[in-house]
């Protein structure tokens, strides 16, 4: 014991979850600092989960004003016109989140995240970016990787009834429970290496296993489309479908992949995904919450390195998109 015991208040409040991950993990959570960029429905779900879990602090970045879209899938924004008119999405969410757990410091940071330097990100243990351009994802990931302290990096995106999570824990050392030769429970230490987002998406498609989730490819096409057109993330609609399908064809050719491998029907669904589908927000926000808790506590196998969910088939799949030498 390091003498920093959980307070009586913490023990009472966190009793049920301490029974899941232990007091030591709970202590680590209470010292961790989380940054979330982009407060749509899925991010809101994640924030709720991580605040309830009892992290040390949560910082929100989203200078957007409240819109119909924001209200539709973000339960942290209460539709009170007087309040909404003057505050940003992050400020409104912050007010709601604070009351979920008074022991967590929830605050707002304003400004353009992509302009912040490494010393900003150094304040955090975990950075999550949502509704982010491809360029911003890459740049923030790189800034995090350059720091001497390990800053865990995640992207999360939900479009229509599909969701994607990307995980970069760099070098991650953790423990997990196993049964030894005598079938007795024991703890083993493991180490994983993660590729950056850039490295991961650079893996040629034809080298990936055939069974890799099609959602991976589809999301990359959408990402590239929005970048090429200079769109804000999610700023896409059915009118864009012909152009998106054309881009899909081009990318597939460049990747030596048969373009029919990525169904047009899937592309159509994603293109119509300006609004998130709340059940998928809950699912993705929940999975992301569990992953961040694992990363902070250093307990349990974290997923490596993409997670996909499609409500159409109901599968929640982990895909390892990396060069063979980086696989564990």
């Amino acid at each position: 014991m390091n003498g920093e015991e959980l307070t009586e208040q913490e023990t009472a409040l966190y009793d049920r979850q301490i029974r899941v991950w232990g007091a030591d993990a709970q202590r680590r959570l209470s010292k961790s600092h989380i940054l979330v960029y982009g407060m749509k429905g899925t991010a809101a779900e994640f924030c709720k989960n991580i605040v309830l879990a009892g992290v040390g602090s949560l910082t929100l970045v989203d200078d957007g004003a409240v819109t119909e879209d924001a209200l539709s899938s973000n339960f942290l924004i209460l539709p009170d016109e007087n309040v909404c008119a003057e505050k940003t999405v992050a400020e409104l969410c912050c007010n709601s989140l604070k009351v979920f757990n008074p022991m967590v410091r929830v605050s707002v940071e304003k400004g353009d995240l992509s302009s912040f330097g490494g010393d900003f990100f150094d304040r955090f243990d975990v950075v999550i970016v949502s509704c982010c351009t491809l360029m911003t994802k890459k740049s923030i990931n790189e800034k995090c990787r350059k720091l001497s302290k390990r800053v865990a990096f995640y992207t999360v995106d939900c479009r229509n009834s599909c969701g994607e999570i990307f995980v970069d824990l760099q070098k991650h050392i953790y423990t997990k429970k196993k049964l030894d030769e005598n079938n007795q429970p024991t703890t083993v230490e493991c180490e994983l290496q993660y590729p950056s987002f850039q490295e991961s998406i650079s893996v040629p498609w034809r080298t990936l296993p055939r069974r890799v989730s099609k959602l991976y490819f589809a999301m990359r096409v959408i990402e590239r489309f929005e970048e090429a057109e200079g769109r804000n993330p999610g700023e896409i609609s059915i009118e864009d479908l012909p152009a998106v399908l054309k881009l899909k064809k081009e990318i597939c050719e460049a990747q030596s992949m048969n373009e029919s491998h990525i169904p047009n029907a899937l592309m159509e669904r994603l293109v119509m995904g300006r609004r998130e589908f709340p059940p998928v927000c809950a699912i993705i926000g929940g999975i992301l919450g569990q992953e961040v808790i694992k990363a902070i506590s250093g307990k349990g196998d974290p997923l490596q390195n993409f997670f996909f969910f499609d409500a159409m088939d109901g599968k929640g799949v982990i895909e390892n998109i990396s060069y063979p030498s980086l696989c564990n």
Partner: protein
Amino acid sequence: MASLHHSSAVKAAKVLMVGAGGIGCELLKTLALSGFQDIHIIDMDTIEVSNLNRQFLFRQSHVGQSKAMVARDAVLRFRPNISITPYHANVKDSDFNVEFFKQFNVVLNGLDNLEARRHVNRLCLAAEVPLVESGTTGFLGQVTVHAKGKTECYECQPKPAPKTYPVCTITSTPSKFVHCIVWAKDLLFAKLFGDKNQENDLNVRSSDASNSPENGEDVFERRDNENIEQYGRRIYDHVFGYNIEVALSNQETWKNRNRPKPIYSRDVLPGKLNHQNGNVDKSCATDDLSSVSTMASLGLKNPQDVWSLAENTRVFLESLKLFFASREKEIGNLSFDKDDQLAVEFVTAAANIRAASFGIPLHSLFEAKGIAGNIVHAVATTNAVVAGLIVIEAIKVLKKDIDNYRMTYCLEHPSKKMLLMPVEPFEPNKSCCVCSKSPLSLEINTHHSKLRDFVEKIVKAELGMNSPIIMHGVTLLYEVGDDLEEDMIANYTANLEKVLSELPSSVIGGTMLTVEDLQQELTCNIYIKHREEFDEEKEPDGMVLSGWTQAPLEKKDDNKKLVGNGGSTSTALPTEGQKEVELVEISEETEISGKKRKQPGISGDETNNHNEIQKLDVVDDGEDDLVILDQCDIDKKKKKRLQ
């Protein structure tokens, strides 16, 4: 699918949620965001502090208030224009009859106990309303869909009965810590602080007749001239010292077992308890009985610490002292409550001392409390994931998208890369007595077993009927009801005490009894088979129901398991190391046996044998993916269909 925000099926739907707890809070939030506009929610509980780590609609200031009401108010804050009707009531109340259920398009369960789930299952079948069931424990979760006639009902697959232990294991030969907890909670605590008139197995039954205690005197009663410390030490020495010596005198018991060691307080704590008497006085003075705590009094700070034998002894004696010093009025009426700090402290100490005696590892108060209180470990994230999955299934139900109904498992460790694994639902089980009305048979000694035993253990506990009517042909043997006449009640009361063969309409081998619950609209026909002998250990109730029944838990360790009937009796002490695990035990090796619904165009072998594992290839071609499990390793968790 996102266009479902405006889907007419969702907008027009009337939905019933049962449970406003861990899953309920997440579910209500997601339903509201998804465009549902008419939601009813039933929950009988009030809010507790330990709920707040995951039931995020509740605040500290809400502790003590109705979950259903507070949940509704919280959700209306971000969806002010929808209708949420809360019921602070028990779903088993007669108000929630078939007519009530019929008004809904779908029922969504977020319950935490088997009894209520079975009850709702029956009402949904009777009302012909689809049911979406769910459960979570820690990182595991599952969601299943039940549509009458099309899929299994909730009871088609036998669910494990709550765990029980043989009496002798508890009273004489404990081998696990949980046995010590049951002893400390259901025997010692009950004996000292509970109803004195209750039967209690505390004194070990020994073949050595000379063990009978001082005649006419109850060892556990405090004597007039005894101060509290003397009393405490005397009880301690009796249960941990004397009783063990008596047990040891029976050589047979210990032939193949480690012998326990008797423990006397003078050896563990030679001196007097001369600590902080001031604290004891202080606690007497305070009105806040809930703050009386041994740990506080003894300066033990960390509930996660494992106390030494000496510390446990101190806690035992001090807890006893505090009960008598500041809660004397309650003594004689107390039952164990996991939120009663002093009771938890006492039970922890007593269990630990017994464990020490039997060479079983000691546990912390935190761990002991979890076992004694059947605490379910729970986190917000799993509930959130499950809530999302429930809403997805609910929408399929509303759109009558039958072919796409799925059972979905949330795994802690991925199986074939999947953390969320959908599986097609099964067809109804033809021998399910609930949805397929197939008859059962009961082996029973009709000359020894009374109607009361049949009613309590078979009809209520095992068959899950609340208000049964029992008939033999046209003769009413027993019924529960509000408007019964005096002479009928007298008749039934008398019948309960009669053995079956001596009932007004004699029940013997070959008799067919009809058992009904009108509220659940469930009728079971039970064929009686007379049997003389039953195994005391394996069949302690002297009754065996077959044809469709709850299966005993099958586990890797070879501890003898009883088929418990879940009821509290003096022959089988019910307890659980964990709360009733509602989930199918999920792991990578889990395979789901049974007949699948046929789907056109599935490749691979497909056998229709009920009792064998399906051997099918995973079909994986894009949007129309169906997950069908490969043959997995045969595993102890395999569920068998009972023919």
